């Protein structure tokens, strides 16, 4: 006993170092992300003389929020959810209906305008409730079966918003959505608004910088909360269920409620993101929440590093850049590249050749596919994998040696 205890004391410092090193990687990533987040609007506004890139960042932001939420379900609890966009839709419509003229033309004949700051939490609760409702009958299913049911849910929800057109406007979408307002706002050179000024009774009104600040704060809050959960009783229960559901139940974990919590909490982040989306785009239509959105977020989570919060954030940012910035810009860039290297001859269309720009346009999805396949081949564990996968890959060999040595000592 005492021998084991002293061995434990001797053995721990090195291992705690290892833990610290890996934790440091997360700290470093968070540090870089914070600095980039602060500098991004100033630098891009100065460099490009416009806020187009900041607008892009606000859109990337809600994908980050969605990825953080889906990571709770898929990465922590190991439940494959293919209909995550449904909760996003529920969050967005909750805000859109309660903060626009929409309900005036509905059977209620009375428009509702509640402030964004309250509706943000209403959307959160609506999405979480939807998560629990969906979860209840399905969580006894496992693996693939669960994935199929969530897939179905993801298909049903946009259809509901589409078909309940008396209330939701259906295909006409909900427009003229209220903008968040604040009693005081600060503007200055950093947001390209000239000298430092206080603005009273500020309306976001499509101001990309204001939305950018809002989403950065929302993400920061989400990261802190999810981190807390990850290192808690509930976080361990999720991981235990992911690893071995039977053993988890035998250890006293109520697997049904624990999985429901994963679904509900994961969904609540997309409710948050939905309210933000509704406000920032000011137009919510059923087409914005199709299957492709669920898959895009899932790709972000898997490519970034399932189970690891920093990885998922990076994954969302990288994939957003690829899907919504690089690939749409590809035809233009291909043309200018061809012109610059003296291949200007292939640019115009002639005969069967549709022209370089058109051809690249047609190849968009092939290029996207190649990028996905390539990334998964190069880094199957994700860009920044969780400690679990990384340590497993990195140290399996080392520890094998260790145990051999230990066994030799023991016998």
């Amino acid at each position, binding site marked *: 006993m005492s021998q*084991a205890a002293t061995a434990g004391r001797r053995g721990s410092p090195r*291992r705690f170092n290892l833990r610290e090193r890996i934790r440091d990687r997360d700290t470093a990533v968070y540090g870089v992300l914070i600095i980039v987040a602060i500098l991004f609007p100033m630098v891009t506004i100065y460099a490009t003389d416009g806020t187009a890139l900041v607008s892009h960042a606000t859109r990337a932001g809600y994908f980050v929020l969605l990825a953080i939420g889906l990571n709770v379900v898929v990465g922590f609890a190991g439940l494959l959810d293919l209909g995550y966009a449904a909760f996003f839709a529920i969050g967005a419509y909750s805000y859109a209906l309660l903060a626009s003229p929409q309900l005036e033309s509905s059977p209620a004949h009375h428009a509702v305008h509640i402030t964004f700051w309250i509706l943000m939490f209403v959307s959160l609760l609506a999405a979480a409730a939807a998560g629990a409702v969906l979860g209840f009958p399905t969580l006894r299913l496992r693996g693939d079966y669960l994935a199929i049911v969530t897939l179905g849910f993801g298909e049903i929800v946009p259809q509901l918003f589409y078909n309940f057109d008396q209330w939701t406007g259906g295909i006409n979408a909900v427009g003229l959505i209220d903008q968040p307002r604040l009693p005081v706002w600060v503007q200055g050179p950093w947001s390209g608004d000239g000298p430092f000024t206080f603005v009273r009774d500020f309306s976001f009104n499509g101001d990309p910088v204001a939305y950018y600040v809002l989403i950065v704060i929302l993400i920061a809050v989400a990261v802190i909360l999810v981190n807390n959960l990850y290192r808690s009783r509930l976080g361990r229960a999720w991981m235990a269920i992911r690893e071995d559901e*039977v053993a*988890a139940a035998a*250890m*006293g974990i109520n697997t049904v409620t624990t999985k429901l919590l994963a679904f509900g909490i994961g969904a609540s982040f997309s409710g948050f993101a939905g309210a933000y989306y509704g406000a920032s785009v000011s137009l919510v239509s059923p087409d914005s929440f199709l299957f492709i959105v669920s898959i895009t977020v899932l790709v972000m989570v898997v490519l970034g590093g399932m189970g690891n919060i920093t990885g998922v954030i990076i994954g969302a940012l990288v994939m957003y850049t690829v899907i919504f910035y690089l690939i749409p810009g590809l035809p233009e860039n291909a043309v200018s590249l061809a012109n610059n290297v003296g291949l200007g001859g292939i640019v115009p269309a002639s005969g069967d050749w549709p022209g370089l720009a058109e051809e690249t346009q047609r190849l968009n999805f092939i290029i996207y596919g190649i990028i996905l396949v390539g990334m998964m081949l190069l880094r199957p564990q994700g860009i920044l994998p969780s400690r*679990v996968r990384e340590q497993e890959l990195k140290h399996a060999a080392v520890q094998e040696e260790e145990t051999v040595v230990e066994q030799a000592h023991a016998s």
Partner: protein
Amino acid sequence: MSEPAADNILELTDLTKRFGGLVAVDNVSLNIKRGEVFALIGPNGAGKTTLFNNVTGLFKPTSGRVLFDGRDITGFKPHQVARRGIARTFQNIRLFDYMSCLDNVRVGRHVRMKAKVWDSLFKLPRERKEEERVTEEAMELLRFVGIAKHANQYARNLAYGQQRRLEIARALATDPKLLLLDEPAAGFTPQEKVELMQLVKKILGRGITVFLIEHDMKVVMGISERIVVLDHGEKIAEGPPDEVRKDVRVIEAYLGKSA
């Protein structure tokens, strides 16, 4: 049945489990006294693990009753059984492979923790305190089974014997009154078997009753006070090790009928 219920930690009454036409456990009744080591033996396929699964709620008995600590727990869900105070290990080790040893044990503590979602979300002081306490308790258990120095390693990376010990530590973390060990000495070297027997005695010293399935007769004879023998789901013998060893039906079950 002559003893009052309070002396028995576990009472099985006419427990039967059928899978379609197959009767895996056939009308088995047995009583386990508080504070003893009780062994369940029998040839492969005799229904030993099925009996464990019926007690711990993984299966629902077809008929019969399971009384634990004077309360009927027949048909309880696994987590409810664990909460009542029955913990178990598995025949083919079922650890949380990609969680650290410390976390494996802390998961075992889950059922005795109080932190709610809000406490964890906002890291309230009482949640922090509970986490600290649980971490210490978990480390104590790792020391108890002798693998404290591996606390931060993934369960998967432990040697086989250490994994069995970790599984026991995880089960102990649930604060059980009754510990079910499913072939704890399987695949052990003679030295490891001796260490296991010492560990079982230490567990008894904590006031925990031990109910084990084991094939190794040396281990069974060495630590258990009473033995039940199962064959084709039926109880064929019960008693202290020396008597059971001489029982004709037991010898037949293991060695086949002699002429």
